[in-house]
């Protein structure tokens, strides 16, 4: 594998950011974190992540609002929404994200989802390249 795939973790809680970074780095990704929407907006152009994990409930601009703005500029970078609630699925605004994961201390499900999304995104890119 050449370059490591890059993941930006957006979460307002520092400990969560640390947990995600360690778990995802261990899983072989290059990880950067942002503590809120503004921070993420600043870091994305520089870091150019292959995938963004986005906490929905954040102080200031929440995850869904950030997703909407982000999609205006970037239509391809996949976003995985993380939340404590299971019923955000009902909200059509999250359709703009590639996946939706209910937060759990067991990150296996998150990691599986990230892998799936990245693979799909890779396929898509290859299709577009052809």
């Amino acid at each position, binding site marked *: 594998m050449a370059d490591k795939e890059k993941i930006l973790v957006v979460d307002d809680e520092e400990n969560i950011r640390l947990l995600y970074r360690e778990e995802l780095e261990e899983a072989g990704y290059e990880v950067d974190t942002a503590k809120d929407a503004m921070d993420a907006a600043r870091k994305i152009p520089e870091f150019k992540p292959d995938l963004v994990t986005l906490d929905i409930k954040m102080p200031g601009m929440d995850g869904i609002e950030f997703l909407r703005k982000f999609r205006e500029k970037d239509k391809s970078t996949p976003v995985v929404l993380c939340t404590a609630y299971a019923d955000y699925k009902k909200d059509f605004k999250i359709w703009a994200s590639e996946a939706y994961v209910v937060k759990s201390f067991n*990150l296996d499900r998150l990691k599986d989802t990230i892998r799936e999304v990245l693979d799909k995104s890779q396929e898509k890119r290859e299709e577009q390249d052809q």
Partner: protein
Amino acid sequence: MQNIDAKWRTPWLSGSEGPERYLTNLLDYAVDAAMETTGSDACAILLVDERRQTLTLKSCKGLHDTATSAVRLPKGKGASWRIVREKKSVALSDVTSDPDFILIPQAGEERYVSMMGVPILKDDDCIGVLFVEDSEKREYTHEDVKALEHVAEKYANSINAAWDFERLNEKTRSLSILNDLNHIVSATNNLREIVNHLLHFTTELTCARTRIIWLTDESNEVLTKHFPESTGDDEWMAPVRNGIVTHVARTHETVRIDDIHSANPFEGLDRVASTSVLCHPLVFEDRVKGVLLLADRVTGLGDYCVAFSGEEAQMVESLSQTAAQAISRVKVYQKLEKAVEDNQAKANELSILFQLGMAMQRTVSMDDLLRVILSCVTVGKGLGFNRAILFFLNETDGLLHGTMGLGPDTGDDANRIWSDINHEFGEQPDLVQWLLNRDPYEIENSSFNALAKSLTIPMDGKNIVAHAVNTKTATCVKNLRSLTEQDYDLISKLNCQEFAVAPLVARNMPIGAILVDNSFNRKPITESDLKLLVRFAAPAAWGIENIKLVERLSVVNKEMLEIDRNMAQIERLSTLGEVSAEMAHEIKNPLVTIGGFARRLLRKMPSSKAEVKYASIIVQEVERLERLLRNTLDVSRMAPVKKESADLNRLVREALDFYWRMLYEKSIQANYRLSPDLAPVFIDQAQIRQVVINLILNSIEAMSCDRHDTQKTITIETEPVKGDQEKALLKISDTGGGITELDFDNIFNPFFTTKPHGTGLGLPLCKKLIATHQGSMKIDNKLGVGVTFSITLPCCDLSKKLQ
């Protein structure tokens, strides 16, 4: 002649007696004078009455004293009338030689053989006859006749004056009799008494042998009863009534017949009269109150019948007027009296109905109401029947069921109760209070009540009670011959002679009947008793219907309360859900951090270290907390239900398969009893799977303790439930020993749990999910054995799906 004149002066010159004796004295003088003048053995004076119908013997000597006034000769009879008619004297040496001569044996005339009679003339009018008689045969000379004529002439004026005076006196007497009648009949309101007085006074005034009065009936038209009854039965009198009496009643005119054999336009009159008739209407204010018929004016001693005089007719008219007025007054009085009685009865009825209403208003239970109704029917101050039974119609079995009976068990019992009641009323005159305060146990335990309750009457059968209810009409059973077998059965059970039934009708529908009898005092049930019972039955039925409504209402109310409680629980669940969702979110993130790093620790640490165990505990605890949070969020934020047709059997099997390892590890035996006939259910599969899994977990956890020596078994059954809408029944049973009573009351309360790792949200969630499926969930808890959860779920309604 001179001698006579000198000797026989007119008596009033020397007479010292009162005017009432005047005529008698005068006639006695004349008789003496005639006898002395003629030297005859006997003498008599007869006077003509006002109507010139009768000659009455007014004074005599040598004849029986009793003959005076008693001998009356009807017009035309005998030699005397010839003298009156011809105004010529008669002298007979042998009376038998004159065919007109009639001997009056009652007067003692048979002793005499010769007779001389002269007219007593007043202004060419003959007012009487003067006779002398001799027992030895005597040839009367012309002088003898002249002498007698002289005597007659001498006294004629005086006699005429005295005779007028006496008749005047007679009239006065009649008037006073009339006055007496007036007084007497005014003093009574008894019709029979008035009639009797009238008959009596008629006798006083006239000498009619027969006196009959007919009275008109209420409508003042038809002549009904006649008095006195001894004059003959109605059939015998019918021709008389239909003839002259009806004629008089119709025309308001008096009919006077002197001799029915010479002139009589009315048939059948000979049944009551032999000669004369005087028939007079009793008219008051132009209405006929009756008819008075007098027949056969007797002359007294001679027993001859003569015609009625004009004076008598006048008297009778006055008498009739008085009588008619009295009769009319009595009838008005009787009407008034009846009206007053009716009014009193009505007022009494109203008062009873009012008091019943008051008492009914204060009862809220059916038993109380029935007791009040039956008490009101049986108490003397109420309807006063001896016994009463209420029947209610049961629509389902088509029978009238005896529901309550009130009445004494024996005659002694009756006397005791009635005296008790009288005693009670002495202290407590209020019927309403008394009705409400009756001892329910005494009624409840009476053998009559037991008898009443044992009675059933088929509505489609032939019997009086069913007929009354079916036709909604009250009946009184008096004629035992018209009864059917079912009636006899009832009567023999009740042991009564007659009874009455009134239907209980509410909203135009029969709801039952009330049966009454007077088996103890044997008082006949009258028409008005029955009427009152009917009037009473209406508000009673209304009251019963009301109580029924109230009872139904209270059932509905209870159901509403139940629903309300459930709603409150659901609401509490929702609010709790809201709060816990907030909390869950706040807890979730730190939990992720704790659990996440604990897992990392677990992974990074060499497995030999003791700390691995600690990290593992942290992971387990976080796992539990996360489950709690997930359940909490599930309860509060339920996803919309997505129902579809599903195979419940398969769903159950899959759910249980999910736990096969756990079952195996805990040595729990799983039994299926799944019905192959189960129709597909219409459910949200994810939700119902959740329910089934929760319940299976519950059962597994209940059997997790090793203290049970018995085989741990979980049994899952399904079976179809037939009904209006087909349902599927799912039963999950365990052998976990059941739930204690205290815990059982709480199992549906959120956050209640008995398990070391429970969340307390499992069962409330299940209940909520089943409820959203219009299903039901029941728990059969057998302490010491286990618990069975029974869930019903609606099957797919194919007909609905096709629409």
